[in-house]
């Protein structure tokens, strides 16, 4: 017993400390690395346009379409349809985020109900499996018929696009929960309800959230497509407006904003995953 403290000290040092000091440096390096290819491509593009190598009318370089944005005071459209670009970005991003959030919550609830009740599973699972393969974009016409043009349609499209696939993912994640965690909880006095709320629910979150991230791009495309065909604002409208006016600067500006916003929303999802679902490293 004399060397008890020594025994325990040697049992093991922590293997990982949170917030390693070099984390920021490597993060900065990552950003730098992501920018270099873009700088190269844009430089070639600008040089090509400046020397008239390619149709600068068809593919105006960033210097040209960004100047266009500046000159038009960051507003696009006419009269009542006119909208500042930042508003278009926020509107599109919010639509996809709200749709994803509602879809995520509803899918987890449905998936858990399906896993908990055999009768509910028999009734609902065939429907979910049948509806899951329908691409988000395919819901747009129905959304417009149901909700007209506006936010509800865009949110509906995102919701329908992710809800079924995330429900299937939740059911799979529930089945994959480590049985020993469930047995441990029961052995320590958890009731059946507590096993669901305290063990299965937190255990499935990371996997379903990863699925959400994978499906984000499809949902994002669906929002833009909805904005192009019916919902008359947002970034999708900006691109379609450019096409209608044969304004390639506006088209490319819109595409540039779509890419940047999609990238930032995905980065936001990664941060949510890292900070809230930190117990599983983000893939």
């Amino acid at each position, binding site marked *: 017993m004399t060397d*008890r403290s020594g*025994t*325990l000290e040697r*049992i093991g040092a*922590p293997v990982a400390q949170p917030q390693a000091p070099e984390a920021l440096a490597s993060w900065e390096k990552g950003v730098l690395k992501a920018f270099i290819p873009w700088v190269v491509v844009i430089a070639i593009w600008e040089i090509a346009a400046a020397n008239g190598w390619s149709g600068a009318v068809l593919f105006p370089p960033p210097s040209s379409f960004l100047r266009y944005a500046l000159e038009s005071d960051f507003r696009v459209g006419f009269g009542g349809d006119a909208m500042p670009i930042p508003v278009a970005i926020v509107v599109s991003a919010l639509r996809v985020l709200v749709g994803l959030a509602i879809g995520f919550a509803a899918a987890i609830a449905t998936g858990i109900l399906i896993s908990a009740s055999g009768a509910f599973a028999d009734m609902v699972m065939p429907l979910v499996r049948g509806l899951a393969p329908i691409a988000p974009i395919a819901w747009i016409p129905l959304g417009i018929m149901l909700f007209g043009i506006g936010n509800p349609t865009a949110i509906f499209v995102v919701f329908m696009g992710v809800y079924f696939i995330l429900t299937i993912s939740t059911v799979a994640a529930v089945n994959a929960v480590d049985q020993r965690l469930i*047995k*441990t909880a029961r052995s320590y006095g958890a009731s059946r309800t507590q096993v669901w709320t305290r063990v299965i629910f937190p255990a499935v979150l990371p996997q379903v959230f990863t699925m959400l991230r994978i499906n984000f791009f499809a949902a994002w495309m669906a929002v833009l497509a909805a904005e192009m065909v019916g919902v008359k604002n947002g970034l999708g409208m900006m691109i379609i407006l450019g096409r209608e006016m044969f304004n390639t600067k506006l088209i490319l500006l819109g595409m540039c904003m779509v890419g940047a916003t999609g990238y930032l929303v995905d980065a936001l999802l990664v941060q949510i995953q890292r900070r809230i679902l930190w*117990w599983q490293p983000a893939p």
Partner: protein
Amino acid sequence: MTTLSCRHVGKVWPGAGGLSVTALSDVDLTVESGEFVAILGPSGCGKSTLLELIAGLEPLSSGRIAIDGKSVSGPAPGVVMVFQDHSLFPWLSVKDNVGFGLAMKKVPKPERERRVARLLERVRLSKFANHRPHQLSGGMKQRVAIARALVESPEFIMMDEPFAALDFQTRALMQRFLLEVWLEFKPTIIFVTHHIDEAVLLADRVVVMSAGPGRIIEEVRINLPRPRRMTDPGFNDFRARLTETLEREVMRAHVEDELRLVSHAA
């Protein structure tokens, strides 16, 4: 005195296509209060199943398990489980993992915190109370799992190969640590292992099980004084005896498997 008794315990797992598997057959076992019993056997002999039956996590197919004469019909408050992979909840901090059972039983927060803090102090993890399991080493995780068991002041701790995933040195330290807390808290421990030295080093009594179907084939009382060392005189005799029994058993199971395959092929 709390006595655990298993009488003619059997467990049949329903298999796919009507092929059921008999995991345990006619197991008789009595464990006295405060005893340290090791269950030794080849893989697939149903030793883990037996633990889960005692812990009330699975229903019996036949026979009876009773604690102080009262039949086990579900997880009982005084019986807790520690698994090989420590089974800590990755989303909870160390202190919330240790306090999990108390929280489930709605123990008031101040009392819960006091008991958790005392146990963390005892396993020397106070500094890591707010860490998450993935930030700990294997040995530390298993100490958290042991603290989570001890904080319940359990009468029985079921340990299912708790140190199997640890490296040799950590394992030796954890074995010594487990004996310390066993002597201090005096719970009854039923410890499943396939490691002969570990069984002889730790247990008052070693129960040897056979495979297919699992049943008890030998019980050996280890009457060596504590603290024990693997170099103690007498240690080798127990090791030799158990090795022989186990080897015979593994060979028999192997031959039976081969015969079964041959008869299937024919």
